Structure formats: C-alpha cells, structure tokens
C-alpha cells in the first residue's frame, strides 16, 4: 500500500483524490478482518490513541474505540464530563497535558469548528477529527462514500443529495467535499432557512422541494433533525418538517427507480425518515455502521503508520 499525503485527518476539504481513494480502497482489507472469528490485528501495537471527546457521542466514540482496539492500540478515553474542562482548564492546557503523556494519535470531537485544527497546530501527535462543530466529520463522510460505492461500484457521475439541516451539519460539509472530489454530482435539500449562505458557490445544487430532490437523486443522505435545536427559529414544527421534507416509503415508491438511502444516525423515526424507509429495502443504514468501524481502522492505520 502507498501512503497518505496528509499528516492529520482534519477534514475532507483539502484531501486530494488519491488519498481518498487510498482510504476507500484500504477499507476492504479491514472489512475482511471484521468478518474473521478473531477480529484483531497487531497493526498499531505499542501505539497510544486517546479519544478526546469534548462533546457527547456514543456511536462515533464506540466505533473509533472498536477500530483502535482491533488494531491493538492502547486506548485512553477522555470525555469532557470527567475532565478538568469543567474546572476551567483551557483547551490548550488540556492538550499540552495529554501531549506530555506521549500520545501518538488523538481522535477528537469538539463543539467548536476549527478546534481540531487548532490543537493539531500546537501538538506533535497525529489528529483525527471526529467532528468539530458544524465544520467537518470526515470519517462519517468516508464511511458514507464506502457504503455508496459498495452498492454502485463508483462515485463518479452519481447524483447524491443531502437532505435536512445543512447549515448546522458537519456531516453535510464533509460529504460535499469528499463527493465532489470523487466526481459525484452533489445537491442538498431542506428548508431555505437551513441552507447556508452562498452554498451554490461550493459547486452544489440546492433544492427546497423534496420531490425535485428525489427526482434528481441516485442516493440520498438523510440528516438527523436535531430535536434539541430550538424549533421555531429555523422551522415551525417537526410535524410540518416531516410533511414537507420527511422521507416516506410512499415518496420513494412513487419514483419508480432505485434509490440508496443513508442516514448518519441516530434516527428520529417519523421526523426526517419513516421507519418503513429506515428499516426497508432502500436503506443501507446498518451497513454504514459496519463500514464505519472498517473505515476508521483504515484511517487509523494510514495515519498511524505514516512515515514522519
């Protein structure tokens, strides 16, 4: 295998196509390991990985931790609720302390956009972004791309639409960057209030009508509507959102074509997606989860073994 041109995975914005292809191709190797009775390889033996989670996460953290353990890394978990952050320590102080403990790889999630880049520029460890604010969530986009590719063979020329609250979504941004680099045609769909300013300039089509969006699409990636967000500021009600933008079996069947439905989870059943879709034949939601572990193994391997 060749090696990555990038020292950290901070986002997909500036990641060249050959790096994306290398990550996506490497994933097959690790998927094969996940099917073995003993799902562990010594690849990262002796390396220390810290999962630095300043924001709550269950599935991303577990997915990373499984990937790390299956590569035989020593794993330390740090979460904001148990840390000195609550005592008023700054991010930089926290990082310097972790650095002093000689950690090789930092997997980091933080509510502030740019915070992973901020730390990567001030520490010597390798950094993997596990989600920074509304900025990027690169491993989610990579697992989405792997999952699509398993179904279609290629991303080139594919019409992919991301549906939901694009403005606040790091999943949307990473998918847009990665998919455009891989040659897909990317669109978004959602209420105008959830489409960020000047988004078309990123090379993305914008739909505000769900049926137009579905007409366009070979693949849809349905974003979680964050229930904790203040409904009323960006949209009037979950009920209205579901009626106007919710993905229903009826809408998909009416298209009379194949469709691949992704969702980064966790799902709000009956809000952005109906159970019949989430659990039905269009859905690749559970393969996404499996691929998530494999792609994180691939990224950890490629970043962790990359020559300095």
């Amino acid at each position, binding site marked *: 295998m060749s090696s990555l041109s990038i020292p950290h995975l901070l986002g997909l914005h500036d990641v060249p196509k050959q790096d994306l292809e290398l990550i996506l191709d490497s994933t097959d190797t690790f998927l094969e390991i996940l099917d073995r009775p003993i799902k562990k390889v010594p690849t990262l033996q002796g390396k220390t990985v810290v999962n630095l989670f300043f924001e709550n996460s269950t599935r991303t953290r577990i997915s990373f931790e499984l990937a790390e353990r299956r590569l035989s890394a020593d794993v330390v978990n740090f979460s904001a609720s148990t840390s000195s952050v609550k005592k008023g320590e700054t991010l930089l102080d926290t990082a310097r302390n972790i650095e002093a403990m000689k950690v090789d790889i930092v997997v980091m999630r933080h509510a*502030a956009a740019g915070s992973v880049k901020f730390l990567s520029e001030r520490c010597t460890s390798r950094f993997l972004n596990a989600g920074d604010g509304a900025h990027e969530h690169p491993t989610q986009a990579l697992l989405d791309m792997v999952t699509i590719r398993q179904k279609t063979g290629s991303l080139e020329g594919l019409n992919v639409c991301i549906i939901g609250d694009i403005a606040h979504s790091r999943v949307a941004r990473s998918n847009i960057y990665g998919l455009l680099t891989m040659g897909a045609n990317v669109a978004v769909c959602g209420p105008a209030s959830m489409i960020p300013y000047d988004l078309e300039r990123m090379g993305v089509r914008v739909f505000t009508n769900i049926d137009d969006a579905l007409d366009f699409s070979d693949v849809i990636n349905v974003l979680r509507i964050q229930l904790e967000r203040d409904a009323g500021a960006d949209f009037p009600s979950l009920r209205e959102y579901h009626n106007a933008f919710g993905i229903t079996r009826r809408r998909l069947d009416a298209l009379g074509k194949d469709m691949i439905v992704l969702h980064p989870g966790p799902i709000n059943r009956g809000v952005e997606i109906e159970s019949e879709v989430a659990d039905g034949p269009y859905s690749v939601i559970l393969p996404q989860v499996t691929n998530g572990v494999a792609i994180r193994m691939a990224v950890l391997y490629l970043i962790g073994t990359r020559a300095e």
Partner: protein
Amino acid sequence: MSSYIFKNATLVDPVSGLDTQKDLLVVDGVIERIGEQLSSAGAEIIALDGKTIVPGLCDMHVHFREPGQEHKEDIASGSAAAAAGGFTAVACMPNTDPPIDNASVVSFIFKKGQGLAVDVYPIGAITKGRKGESISPMIELREAGVVGFSDDGSPVNNTKVLRTALEYASMLDLPLIQHAEDPHLFAGGAMNESIVSTELGLPAIPRLSEDAVVARDLMFTEYVNGCYHLAHMSTIGAAEAVRAAKAKGLRVTSEVAPHHFTLTDDTVRSYDSNTKMNPPLRTADDVRAMKEALRDGTADAIATDHAPHAGFEKEVEYVYAPFGIVGLETAVGLSVTELLLEKWLTLPQLIEKLSTNPRRILRLPEIRIAEGQRANLSFLDLEAQWTVDAAAFRSKSKNTPFHGRVLTGRALGIYNNGQLILQR
C-alpha cells in the same frame, strides 16, 4: 524649560494648507518658529531629514480596559502604545468595569491620564450600565468632560432609548456613537456570513445586522435632527446609507478601522482568533467599499478600535475567543500601505482622517502647525519598510493579525504636553 529644533522635516498640515520642508523650533510646548536653518541656544537638535511632521494624530476609538481589566491594558500602557503609534490623543470607550456612566469614573480616567504625553479623553456610556435600558446622566457626564457618548461593544436597540439619547446628545452638542448591530441577527456569530463561513461551519453574522441598524438609526437622526457617528463601519450597505444621509444634509459622521480596509474574511480560514473582531472582517467588496468611503468623505475618520486581550484569552477555540485586536501600533503603517501608496488618499487627506476629522467630531480643539500654536505633533517616516512584530508592541496585549506583515510607513513618535517621545 526644554526646547527642540526639529530639522529638515516635511511639515504637512491640512488645516493651514502647509506642505513644506522647514525646521521647527519648539520651546516649552509651543511652536516658536518655523523657518530655515533655525538655531537656538540650548535647543536639542533632532534631525528629521526625509521624515514628516503632522498635527498630532487622534484615535477616537480605543479600549484601554481601565478600570476593571488592567491585565489586558491600562491607561499608561495604552497611552504608551498610542505614542508609539504616532497618536497624541485617544478617546476611550466606556465598556470598562465599572463602565464610564457617571462623573466619578470620568474623573478617574482624567486622573490616570494626568501627566501623560497622550491626551486621554473618556467617552461616556449612552445608557446606565451600558444595558441599553435607560440613558445615563448625560449632562453630568458632559460637565465632567466626556467627548461623546457610546455603548460600544453593545448597540442601543430600544428605539425609545435611542431617540431620547440622540436628543440629549444633540442638546449637549456631542456625537452619539453607535455600535450598529442587530442582536437577533448577530446572536452567537463569530465571523462574517459568506461563502467562507459556509465552508468553515462557523456561526455567522450577516452584513444585514449592521445595515439594518444603520438604516433605522439614520431615520431617527433625521427625525430628531440628531448628531450621529457610526463606529467601525464595515459594510457596503452601511456606507451607502451614510453616503445618502450626508447627501441629505444630516449630521452624520463615520469611522473605519484599518483592519476593515485591509483584511477580508478569507483570513478566518486559519481559525486564528486574531482574525476575530466585531464587526467581523467582511468580503473583498466591503473592503473596497471602505476605501471608497474614505476617499469620497463618506467615512470621516480612521479609528483603530484598539481592543487588547491577553494571550490566554485569545488562544482558544475560535467561537469562544473574545472579539477584538490591538490597532494603535499598526494604524499608520496600514493606512500608508493600503491608502496612501495605493492612491486612495493624498497625505493631507490621510491626516484629515487620522487627526483633523476625529478631533472635530469629538469637539476637541483644532491642532495646527503654526507659530504660536501649542505643539501637538506626530512624527512619521512614510518610506520606512518594516515588519510588524507583536512582541515589540508597547501595548500589554499582542493580539494582532498583522504580526509578520511587511508595511510601509511608520510612526516615529510624538511631541505633546511638552513631552517628546521618540521611539526610533
């Protein structure tokens, strides 16, 4: 008793129309003679060949953090930064702790400024506690010596309070200096709303937040015949509104900060919190509009919005970092590099923006370079090429996005209140 002969400098004074290379004899704080080959027994000779002397520069918008946040800056350190940057006068904003909303805090500022080479003028708060709810004792503040009113850092958005404050300020013949921002559109924002904020995923502040408030305020200004000054103008829309209001004859003035005619929001891509200020850095079109506004007189003054913050406060996640950068020690270099060399302004026009106009807006005495006048002078080297080094700033704080930038034009120092401060 002290006297100086400043030799062979170019004297430029837009008020008296002076632009000549002569010697300047200053005795005990007064310009005694302007002429050629001057000599005077006991006078110290300062050779200024190729350098320029202009009327003392005035920065009408600084934050000196005293009282309350002296770890960022205090009146002495801020004044040292002003002198190093070529300013002989500053007007400090009232967002101190306690705020400058009563006469005793005004007296405190004057007391702290006593004996300094730089004249430190307080601006009084528009509202009590800067809360925007009820107006401060503006008559008392005026009597205590404030040179304007502002809640800078926060807007006045209660329209009844705005109207009353405009009426009071006009009655007292002082400007109402507005920090124009809509609190709902602004809420939680960290940078300008643009393709850059969309790409970076940072919460954004639309230009509309400034535009809408300026448009409304100008209606109020017209209605009550108020005297209104727009602080740190940053958008095309605000400039257009001010231009139209001036054409109508309204009593409106505005200022632009050097970073708003120099940098665009593209620099935020670094996630360096030294690119975070309020109003935020805007687009290239807005930067150009600020230069045009300065050229055609829509913008009357260049003011730095000098906003010191300690390193540990700034070096945090972008969204959590406080707004603001220091500006006193880079203002001349940025103005010369961006405005003079690019021919947006002539030198006399630049001096109007940096000295004459801000003093006029704040009702301060006019400064002239003429025999018999009080010597209030700034020394500039318009040709010096230098690299900004934040570590060398006199300010207590080093939060600048210009560290490492090569500029042309630099202040050498000042003479004011009988004191000569020459840095170089």
